[in-house]
């Protein structure tokens, strides 16, 4: 395959070249609404079909350990305390005290004001910024939700201050929400500019960047076509990851929605050679569900996406179910909820 000229462009130039001009409402609307629509029935059938794969024995063992390593262990409650964050971090580091061979999760995901508590609790286990894979024991990253999560209904200045606070406190990753109101009203330029501004706010004092995950909140976008457009918009604007949901709106992540986002990521990779990450979040509670997502990722964008840099699960209760499955595979008998921590 010949490399597209887009691959050689700087990210901003690339977006402008694709949109065909400045990122104005008119240009973006022309571009995004020119994207072919989605065959909803076909998409759901494809997702259902991928969900029927049978993953057993050694493959399941591999899948379970992979899932643990891809989890963003999350607590996003109004009632979060530093103590709750500390116990979350303890669980992230040693998911199953009965089996020290259990891999660590990829990251902990907390509200911005809890980043400090999470970083302190992680201590030396905190993945240093810019750390690469393969450097021995995997560090755990700290992700913070920001930009007036979960509704995103605040002024840009407030959202940017929210992001800067979290980055300054030591967050490695920022999970921002897009302004769904603006998106649904067709003000694509505003959504685009916000993502660009938030991305800039992710810059640390030393010039390095916190990873930016863009939450589309697909449960509020109503159609698969809108999900596809929002995915393109987020990637054009410079998001490193696209994430389905906040977990505060039902429906949260579903397999068809994630599949449609993965298709955008696959197309973007073909177009530019750049790999964008995907994070389904909310509503994934069982190992069985999570394995369906692994299959979908491997079949849509390829197995190289199954690393923490390119795929994550946003989940809180998923980890316990995966640990129960893992214990079942290790001991040969069924385990129970008494053998994993409550939170």
């Amino acid at each position: 395959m010949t490399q597209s000229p887009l691959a050689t462009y700087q990210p901003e130039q690339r977006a402008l070249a694709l949109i065909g001009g400045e990122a104005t409402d008119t240009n973006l609307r022309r571009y995004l609404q020119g994207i072919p629509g989605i065959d909803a029935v076909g998409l759901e059938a494809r997702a259902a079909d991928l969900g029927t794969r049978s993953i057993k024995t050694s493959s399941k063992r591999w899948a379970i350990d992979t899932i643990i390593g891809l989890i963003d262990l999350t607590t996003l409650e109004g009632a979060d305390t530093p103590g709750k964050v500390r116990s979350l971090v303890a669980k992230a580091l040693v998911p199953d005290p009965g089996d020290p061979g259990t891999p660590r999760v990829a990251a902990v995901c907390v509200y911005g004001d809890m980043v400090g508590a999470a970083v302190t609790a992680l201590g030396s286990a905190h993945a240093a910024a810019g750390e690469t894979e393969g450097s021995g024991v995997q560090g755990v990253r700290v992700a913070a939700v920001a930009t007036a999560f979960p509704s995103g209904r605040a002024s840009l200045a407030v959202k940017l201050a929210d992001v800067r606070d979290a980055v300054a406190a030591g967050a490695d990753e920022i999970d921002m929400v897009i302004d769904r109101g603006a998106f649904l009203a067709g003000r694509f330029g505003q959504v685009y500019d916000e993502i660009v501004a938030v991305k800039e706010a992710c810059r640390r004092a030393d010039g390095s960047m916190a990873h930016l995950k863009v939450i589309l909140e697909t449960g509020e976008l109503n159609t698969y076509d809108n999900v596809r457009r929002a995915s393109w918009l987020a990637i054009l604007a410079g998001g490193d990851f696209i994430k389905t949901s906040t977990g505060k709106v039902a429906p949260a992540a579903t397999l068809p929605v994630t599949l449609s986002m993965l298709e955008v990521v696959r197309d973007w990779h073909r177009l530019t050679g750049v790999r964008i990450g995907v994070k389904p979040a909310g509503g994934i509670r069982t190992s069985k569900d999570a394995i369906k997502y692994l299959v979908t990722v491997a079949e849509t964008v390829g197995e190289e996406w199954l690393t923490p840099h390119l795929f994550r699960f946003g989940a809180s209760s998923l980890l316990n179910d995966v640990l129960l499955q893992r214990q079942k595979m290790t001991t040969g008998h069924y385990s129970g909820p008494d053998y994993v921590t409550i939170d």
Partner: protein
Amino acid sequence: MNRLAIPKTYKLYIGGKFPRSESGRVYEVLSHTGDFLANAAKGSRKDARDAVVAARNALGGWAGATAYNRGQVLYRIAELLEGRRAQFIAEIMSCEGVNAAVASAQVDEAIDRWVWYAGWADKYVQVAGNANPVSGPFFNLSVPEPTGVVAIIAPQGTESLLGLVSAIAPALVAGNTVVVVANENAPLSAISLAEVLATSDVPGGVVNIVTGSPTEIAPWLATHADVNALDLVGAGDLDWVELQISAADTLKRVLPPETGADAAAPALNRILAFTEVKTVWHTKAIL
């Protein structure tokens, strides 16, 4: 003119629903003369696992219901059994090869036993609990509480309905939820009892009935970490010592197999076997 018979294929009873076995297997239920009676689902270890999940989810509601309410719900089962007498008698006659009088006597005794146990629901705590004498100004009270999820291997011999009732009723009285592996050769009573339970006031998941091979399923229940107690009353023909040993790994309460005419005879001790004693201290008011 002869009507074409409609052979039935029964399903499991898990979480208040009637699912097919996850494995898709069925086995033939034969009459005492070897004629085909029906197909029953041949439950697998995964069906047992699902049943334990359902039982665990139902435990809070059932154990938390008032004793009086549990008694009423159990009594209601006896009422429904009474209404289905004819069906149970016909099934017992075809499965066990007994005459109508014997079958009828078995059904009567099963119904009486439900009523007897139902009456205990709001009384056993008074009998088994205690206000303990202590040397201080305290009340010291011991009360029995349900153990949790009880896995039962139903009696496998004759008297299929009476055996099943004698095993599950006492476990339910205290507020336990049960997963029962039915009589393998004569499962029709268990299946019909499931239909009775589904139309009674028993919340879904309180009783879960898995038909199939106890030899295959029992080891998975004995080792299951989310099962709190194991009643091996009908496991006499299995390697039940091995089952006891594996149950000990997760500290389950275990009842041994019973055989003979008075197996699982009605007794307060069968209720108390699946209870845990909680003792609380409380200061006395000093006036």
